[in-house]
């Protein structure tokens, strides 16, 4: 076996997530040889990698979102590796941006860091925990509004 190019392309977590989910669907459809001993390694690594990526914000991304994000951050002049890290991690604080962007104090002013944070949080969808937080907030507001039995169009009592 020969390795022609050990780094032909960088893949984002979303692309790997998409590939593994598609592969899982295909193999589920063609059923029978999933459990043969030879496929055990593939099953293990696919399961573990999917489990890992599903806990990150990448599972809610789509090709359009990725394209939109890359065009939006073009003005900040980031390297490919930095854009990839922003895409994979979705930082929400300035500290995280400073970790992922090299020499961020010299290259980005505070306003630019704020703008970058805004771009990241507005374009990239939040992770599963953030969604849960949003759902519980939604429940709270629903309780404050009047529930159905106080409305005038309720069941008539006569």
């Amino acid at each position: 076996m020969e390795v022609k190019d050990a780094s032909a392309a960088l893949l984002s977590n979303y692309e790997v997530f998409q590939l593994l989910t598609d592969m899982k669907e295909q193999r589920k459809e063609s059923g029978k040889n999933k459990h043969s001993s030879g496929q055990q390694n593939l099953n293990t690594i696919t399961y573990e990698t999917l489990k890992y990526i599903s806990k990150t914000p990448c599972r809610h991304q789509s090709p359009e979102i990725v394209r939109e994000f890359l065009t939006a951050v073009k003005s900040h002049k980031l390297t490919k590796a930095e854009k990839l890290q922003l895409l994979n991690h979705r930082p929400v604080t300035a500290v995280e941006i400073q970790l992922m962007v090299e020499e961020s104090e010299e290259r980005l002013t505070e306003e630019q860091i704020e703008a970058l944070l805004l771009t990241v949080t507005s374009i990239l969808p939040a992770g599963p925990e953030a969604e849960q937080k949003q759902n519980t907030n939604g429940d709270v507001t629903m309780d404050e509004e009047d529930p159905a039995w106080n409305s005038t169009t309720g069941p008539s009592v006569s």
Partner: protein
Amino acid sequence: MFVLVEMVDTVRIPPWQFERKLNDSIAEELNKKLANKVVYNVGLCICLFDITKLEDAYVFPGDGASHTKVHFRYVVFHPFLDEILIGNIKGCSPEGVHVSLGFFDDILIPPESLQQPAKFDEAEQVWVWEYETEEGAHDLYMDTGEEIRFRVVDESFVDTSPTGPSSADATSSSEELPKKEAPYTLVGSISEPGLGLLSWWTSS
């Protein structure tokens, strides 16, 4: 975190699989050979991405199977230097903090790369960051199962292919078990602001 690696290999398809589509048999064989395995100086192979070129399939005398030279691309886990990753703490030992990503376990953060000052609590076998503020020192424990953000600072590949029998100490080596070494290990660091347990840096 993941890279695409272009490789070339000759795949052997036994005759009883000739009725299947060649592409499917080859994909299955490649995954059987490489998935969840570490390739020296390349990384941990995850799964086949696509087949770029299939050359002619030959049948050699004496072997009924077909041999096809395949050019393909494989998804490989190979974080680049200084990449930020998030994992779970597997455990602590005097050697440092062991971190796992679920599909990849051999990540170590040595004591000198922890947030300083750090000390090892022998009783609970856990590393502690002694965080100093004006109010006094807080002890931040690095417990098992906690999510941790770290930077990849080094990687090392070990060639674990079997070596031939050594004539000199043949008897002694057969009695003791060979040491199992991980073929691919990552060294991490959390000595920067923002790195370490996620709970240390979330402001809620």
